[in-house]
Structure formats: C-alpha cells, structure tokens
C-alpha cells in the first residue's frame, strides 16, 4: 500500500499536536521554528505525492487496511495531489508571512493553521463522502478560530454570521448524506458511482434530491450565488494572512463539485451530462455579475480583493457547467492561478495598509507609502495577472476558458459577461491603484518598511504568476491529465474497488 498518500494528512496533524505540547506550547520562538519546519516538510511530502501521481496511476490508501467500500480510503489522483500541493505551498507561504508579528496576538495561530491544512488536505484526498463531511468540519472549526484570531469588535459580527451559516450548511450536508446512504447503501464515491448507475424510477428521484441538497452545501462553501453573501464581509474582516489562506477554502467547494457530480450524479441516458449543470450555468453568470458589482462598490482594497474571489468562483463554476474534459482542465489551471494571485493580493494589501497608517487600504488620500516602487510594481503585476493580461498566468487561464466556451456553444453569454467583467476589474483596480499610490495628503512619506517575512510572502506568490505562464505547457498537460481522470469513472472504480 502506498503509505505516502496518508502523509499530507498526518503531517499537519502531527505538527498541530507538536505545536500544542511543550516546549513549543508556551514559547513563541520554538513555535515559529517548529511551524516553519513542519510546513516545509508538509509541502515536501505533498510535492512527492504529486510527482508520483503524475505517472497517471491512481494511488489508493485504505485506512487501517479496511478494504473499500467498507473502510475509508484516501485516493490520490492527479487532481487531488495537485490541489494538496497547492494548499501546502500556500500554507507554507502564510506561515513565513506570519512570522513577523501576525502570530503574536494569540498562542494558537500556528496550531490552528496546521489543523486547517489538515482539514483541507483531507478533504482533497478522501474517497468517502462522510469522511469529506468530517474533514469539512475540521477545516471549518479551525477557520472559525482563525477568523477570531486577534479580532476586534467588528470581526465578531461577521464571524457569527459565518459560523451560523456553515452550521446550517453542515446540517444540510448530513441530510443529503442520509438520503444518499438510504438509497445507495454506501458512501464510498467510487462505489456510489457503481450503484447509482443501476438505479431507476423513484430511487433515482431520491438520488437526485440528495445530489441537489449536496449541491447547496458545496455552493455555500464555494460562495456561488445566492449563497455568496457571507464571503466579502468574512474575508475582508479576517487577518490578512488568514484571508490569504482562506483563498483555498472556496476552492474546496469547487473541488467537491468537480469530484462528485461528473462521477455519481450523471444522467442515465447521456454520460456526459450531470444533474447540477443546468443550475450551475445561470448561477455562474449571476455570480460573475454580483462579483463585479461588489468590486465596483468596494471602498477599500481588501473588499475589492474579497469580491475578486467571487468573480474567480463565477468563472470556475461556468467551466464546471460546460462539463467537458477540456473545460475542467482549463478550470484547474485557472484555479491554481486565481488561488495564488488572490492570496498574494490579500498579503500585498496588508503591506500597503501598514505603510499608510491609520486609513489602511481605504481609498482616501493618506500619507505616501514608504516603498512606492517595490509595492507599486508588485501591485501592477498582480493587477495584470488577475485581470488576465499577457504575459501573466491570468491571460492563459482566461483565453483557455473562453476557448472551451466556444466548444460547448455557450460562448455568447460567457464571452460577453466575462470580458466586460474583466474590463471593469481593470478599471476599478486602476482607480484603486492611483488612489493608493499617487493621491496623498502632502505629509512626509511613511517610515514603515516591509519586513523580510512580508517580502518573502508577497514576492513568492508574485513569482508564481510568471512561472505559471512560462511553464504553461507542462502545467496544462498536467491539468488535462487530471481532467481526463475525473471523467474516467471505470478507472477510479478499478483503483478503489479492485477488479470488480
């Protein structure tokens, strides 16, 4: 059995426990050292897993050696390993970024971050729907606590809304699981696909009800219209480094939709359509429109970035609604790009805000920032990447998505909405940039300089964008392989259930 598949889940759990125990439990310096080392190690094992998965083989790890479908399995195919590696990389950058002060406000920042990593990695790797629920809860409870980290009065309210909404979401998740288990008698994804194909009549109706309830939960996690109202307030009130880490959390919802719907809930007479498509397509377009309205209405940079997350979700959901291997491959490329770029923008907004003093990143004149050339250049690169201008990664992702829209005859709506949205994002960010960097109230420039940790955090995410476009060839081959595995249901069943 390939034991390395369990490591990206076990390592963060181990580091969380180590960080709570002495000597690192009471000592900030020890905690920082342990946290950094463990974050690097987690990234290393994730990268190793990705390297193995690239051979195209699906690695299955039966926990406790209980064979599927009776035991819980971890399944590492290309898509899961790729997303696990992305998450571990982002967590590593966030750990480095937090070393210069963000982790001082409470003793549990580092353990919570690793527990969040545990939840996200587990959710990407698991091959069992109930286990997916458990990992969702692990990542949610860590995210609740991280959200409250170093919080002031204003955060409490958005945290309360976030927690209550997600608790309701968990209840709906359990109801959906109850229905699905009642109909199918199994919760292993590969086995469910096998059983679901044999259902007909009333049982199929029940299956579809369970599937649509599940869609509500995943849409809530991914922030698809009409379940996206929690996101801007939550992300913009969280600590910036936490918000950067949360950039991956909406993608967990996206991953779950890609993993579950083309596999289990396919229509019986046509294998290439699934039950969620007709709902996701209008949802995607309206999410894009709501996202851009939010961006236009935002009065500070962090709110703008939070709404940019919604726009990226809209584009991803549209690609899922196309439901072709090509569209999923484009979506996975876009997902990597948008996660890294929005996380980088959250961190950059923090650095800019610290140098502008009290007004932070609100779009009003303030004293000039201390390092205008460095931060300004970073801002321009991020803006070009997020809008999708050449030569950065956003351009490739955007063109690929637009091309896939042509193949499924949905180009008219998607092209018009998405291109107008991109233009408006460019306009808003240009306005925001000129406010932040050029309009000042005549005071002396700020003395605050960016700390080394901040620079490492921002610049390493900044570098990802050109790297994603330089290595676009190999990366697009990887995402194409990942997408072909998503649609290869028999391959998954053979790997998980053996030669049945």
């Amino acid at each position: 059995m390939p034991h390395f598949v369990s490591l990206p889940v076990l390592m963060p759990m181990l580091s969380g426990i180590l960080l709570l125990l002495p000597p690192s439990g009471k000592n900030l310096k020890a905690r920082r050292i342990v946290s950094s080392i463990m974050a690097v190690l987690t990234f290393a094992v994730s990268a190793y897993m990705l390297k193995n998965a690239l051979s195209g083989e699906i690695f299955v790890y039966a926990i406790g050696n209980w064979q599927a479908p009776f035991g819980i399995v971890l399944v590492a195919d290309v898509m899961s390993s790729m997303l696990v590696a992305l998450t571990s990389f982002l967590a590593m950058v966030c750990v480095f970024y937090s070393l210069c002060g963000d982790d001082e406000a409470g003793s549990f920042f580092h353990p919570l971050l690793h527990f969040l990593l545990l939840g996200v990695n587990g959710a990407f790797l698991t091959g069992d729907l109930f286990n997916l629920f458990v990992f969702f809860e692990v990542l949610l409870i860590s995210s609740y606590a991280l959200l409250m980290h170093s919080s002031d009065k204003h955060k409490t309210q958005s945290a309360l809304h976030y927690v209550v909404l997600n608790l309701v979401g968990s209840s709906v998740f359990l109801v959906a699981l109850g229905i699905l288990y009642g109909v199918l008698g199994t919760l292993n994804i590969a086995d469910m696909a096998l059983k679901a194909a044999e259902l007909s009549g009333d049982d199929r109706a029940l299956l579809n009800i369970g599937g649509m309830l599940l869609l509500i939960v995943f849409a809530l996690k991914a922030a698809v219209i009409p379940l996206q109202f929690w996101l801007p307030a939550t992300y913009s009130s969280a600590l910036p480094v936490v918000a950067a880490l949360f950039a991956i959390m909406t993608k967990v919802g996206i991953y779950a939709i890609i993993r579950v719907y083309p596999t289990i809930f396919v229509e019986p007479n046509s294998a290439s359509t699934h039950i969620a498509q007709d709902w996701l397509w209008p949802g995607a377009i309206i999410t894009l429109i709501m996202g851009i309205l939010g961006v236009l209405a935002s009065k500070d940079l962090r709110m703008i970035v939070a709404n940019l997350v919604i726009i990226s979700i809209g584009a991803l959901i549209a690609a899922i609604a196309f439901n072709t291997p090509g569209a999923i491959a484009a979506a996975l490329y876009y997902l990597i790009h948008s996660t890294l770029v929005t996380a980088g923008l959250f961190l950059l907004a923090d650095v800019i805000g610290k140098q502008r003093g009290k007004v932070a990143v609100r779009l009003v004149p303030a004293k000039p920032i201390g390092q205008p050339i460095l931060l300004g250049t970073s801002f321009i690169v991020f803006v070009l990447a997020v809008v999708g201008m050449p030569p950065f990664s956003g351009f490739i992702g955007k063109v690929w998505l637009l091309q896939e829209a042509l193949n499924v005859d949905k180009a008219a709506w998607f092209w018009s909405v998405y291109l107008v949205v991109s233009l408006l994002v460019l306009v808003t960010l240009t306005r925001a940039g000129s406010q932040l960097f050029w309009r000042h109230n005549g005071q002396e420039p700020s003395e605050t300089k960016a700390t080394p940790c901040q620079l490492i955090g921002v610049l390493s995410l900044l570098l990802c964008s050109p790297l994603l476009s330089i290595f676009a060839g190999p990366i697009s081959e990887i995402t194409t392989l990942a997408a072909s595995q998503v649609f290869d249901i028999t391959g998954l069943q053979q790997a998980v259930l053996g030669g049945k």
Partner: protein
Amino acid sequence: MEVLYATCVGVLFACGVFLILRARTFPVVLGLTMMSYGVNLFLFASGRIHSNKAAVLGESAQYADPLPQALVLTAIVIGFAMTAFVVILAIRARADLGHDHVHARFPKIKGKE
C-alpha cells in the same frame, strides 16, 4: 411507527428553521441545536427502522445496519463541539457588540420609533 418518526423529524426541522430565522442569537443557537437533533434522527433512519434487531452479528436472528449508527455518533460529537463553539461566540458577540441582535442593532423601521 414510520409516520410518527417522520413527523418528529419534520417538526424538529420546522422549529429549527423557524428559530434560526429569528433575529437574536439565543433563539438562533437553539434553532441550530434543534436542527442537529432532527438531522441525527434522520441519519439514524437511513438504515431503515426496525425493532428487535441488534447491530452486532450473532446477537439476534437478523441484524441492523451498523453504519448509520456510527455516522450518527460522529455527527453527535461534531454537532456538540460546534454548538459549544457557537454558544461561546454568541456570548462574546453580546459582550463585544453590546447587543444580542445578529446585526448588533435593531433595523430601523419606517414610522416606528
């Protein structure tokens, strides 16, 4: 028995949803708890409702599906932890925001002081 069971789950859900839609944090927390009771009962029923069947092999002539019972146990534990967290958060919100309305104040209604 099925009708009684289904009615129980339905009533719990209806009360839960009603309470969650209230504007103060205490009823919201109560509503979440009620809903998680409803969910637990519902999950339990996904293994079909029987009497005189043990979940352990060899204890009775026929056996019940043990998996929903394991799922319910997990769900109860998680639900309990989450409820504890949301209670603490609600108390903190009351202290921080000075009000137990979910928006920290009553919305102003036209024509009413």
